[in-house]
């Protein structure tokens, strides 16, 4: 597989070649019915790195994220064109089972959504339906909770309801739940936007540790967060479609995070990261 160069922008000579890619996104557009929500996205997700997607509201970041593990399949009328490939396999090929995709590419959502069950049951649900033998459940529960930096806080009440946890704890539980199936990639859709700054800080710390074993793609509204945690950043914006007056999202620039924030190639990127618009 050819390492992909950074998204071509005029006069762009910055950025090094990407490392080994785990996900490749080539000329992807996502439609909801007739409406093209985001167009012509070209980017790659490197293994064991954190890739951030930033941009103003409505520019398709979450849509692109959800198309990486076929969560858009759940939306009626959603359609993906282009190629999303995971280690060389086209994820939208007819032979590919979206259920299996989601076991390997997990997702954490914006608002913490633990199941209304016990902490233990939250974590074991994924492995259970994947056919993992029950004997290993205790170990999976502990490993996942340790990875999510939640073990010490809940180890004595694993059978208590997950709904009794605070917002930050619930989100860490959702992260533990997502890693319990042993995914290679973790997709995080604005995971901290519903949390207070302290909880946010803990989760950002967590991401730094998780990336050693997993690849992380994060959508965030908070560009300082992207600057803090990510290795690569993709900047999206919207353009108004002259025909329909609706906004279609597009990828503007995709590069090393430090370059995006210190020396972006596109002036739209520069306007956004310097706060001239948001």
């Amino acid at each position, binding site marked *: 597989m050819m390492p992909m160069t950074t998204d071509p922008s005029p006069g762009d000579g910055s950025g090094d070649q990407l490392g080994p890619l785990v996900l490749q996104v080539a000329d992807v557009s996502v439609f909801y019915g007739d409406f093209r929500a985001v167009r012509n996205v070209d980017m790659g997700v490197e293994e064991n790195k954190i890739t951030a997607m930033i941009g103003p509201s409505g520019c398709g970041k979450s849509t692109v994220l959800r198309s990486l593990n076929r969560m858009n399949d759940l939306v009626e009328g959603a359609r993906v064109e282009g190629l999303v490939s995971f280690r060389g396999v086209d994820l939208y090929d007819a032979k590919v089972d979206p*259920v299996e995709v*989601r*076991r390997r590419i997990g997702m954490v*959502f914006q608002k913490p*959504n633990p199941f*209304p069950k016990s902490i233990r049951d939250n974590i074991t649900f*994924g492995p259970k339906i994947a056919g993992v033998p029950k004997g290993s459940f205790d170990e999976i529960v502990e490993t996942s909770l340790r990875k999510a930096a939640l073990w010490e806080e809940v180890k004595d009440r694993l059978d208590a309801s997950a709904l009794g946890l605070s917002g930050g704890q619930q989100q860490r539980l959702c992260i533990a739940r997502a890693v319990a199936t042993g995914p290679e990639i973790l997709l995080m859709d604005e995971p901290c936007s519903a949390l207070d700054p302290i909880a946010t800080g803990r989760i950002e710390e967590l991401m730094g540790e998780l990336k050693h074993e997993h690849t992380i793609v994060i959508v965030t509204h908070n560009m300082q967060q992207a600057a803090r945690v990510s290795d690569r950043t993709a900047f999206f914006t919207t353009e108004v479609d002259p025909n329909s007056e609706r906004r279609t999202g597009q990828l503007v620039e995709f590069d090393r995070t430090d370059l995006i924030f210190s020396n972006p190639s596109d002036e739209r990127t520069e306007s956004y990261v310097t706060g001239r618009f948001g």
Partner: protein
Amino acid sequence: MALTTTLGDSAGTAARVAAQLEARSDVRGRLFKFVLAFGLALTLAILVALVIGVVTDGWSVLTTRFSSFLSSGLRSSAGEAGVRQGLQGTFWIAIMVTFLAFPVGIGAAIYMEEYAPKNRLSNFIDVNIRNLAGVPSVVYGILGLTIFVGLLKRTSSSSGGNTLLAGGLTLAVLVLPIVIITSAEAIRAVPSSIREGAYGVGATKWETIRHHVLPYAAPGVLTGTLLSLSRAVGEAAPLILVGAVTGRLGGSTGFFEVGQFGERFTAMPIVIATWATRPQEEFSVSNTAAAIVVLLVFVLILNSAAILLRNRFERKRSGR
């Protein structure tokens, strides 16, 4: 220096502001509240009056010959007549409704909410099911007579199709639309965040429904089934049309005998309606009231069981 000075002429200003902030008399609000409370009180009073009236009227029968009242069948003599056959019929009708209408109805609701594509056809079906829920029960009686009794006529000669089975099937069909609608509402109310969470860890649609959607929707579904069951157990018109017996019901069938489904039958609402129209006061007042009390207790037991189950699911859901 801390703020110690107040603005303006303190005494006069404070008095003026206090007057402005003073509560005004809200006559309309108080009147409205009274009307609402009165409505509630009136409803409760009517219910209590009904129950007291019925218990009073049936007191003599219930206290003097309670066990024989429960164990005797339909008789022409008021002092010997009892509700056994009526209770038996009602009991088995309740069982049939539970095992026929609930699985089919809940299954239909799951299909409509989770699997069926949202198009004009599914909309059309949805509207029609809602309409069916409003169809008068006597119409279901005619349906039961034509279809179920007609079908069963061929199988058993003695009863001519007017069997317990036909009665149970008719009432199951009657409550089916209600079960579907209430279950569908309960399933629709399950937050999409829970489904997303399940799909997100690689659950199939059925796994999501079975482990997350249904348990979450269970309290709502149970409430719907509870209402349906109570309704089915109280219906008289359809049973009249399907040929429930009002006079004597010959032959004593054992409570658990399978053969009774192919035989003629009666049920509590029919027994009550029949006795109420008899000329003898012993029938029309005492026996009727006693039978009503028995039916009320029966429904109460059913309701309590369902409520206990519902509460258990609700506790599980909110994590207590």
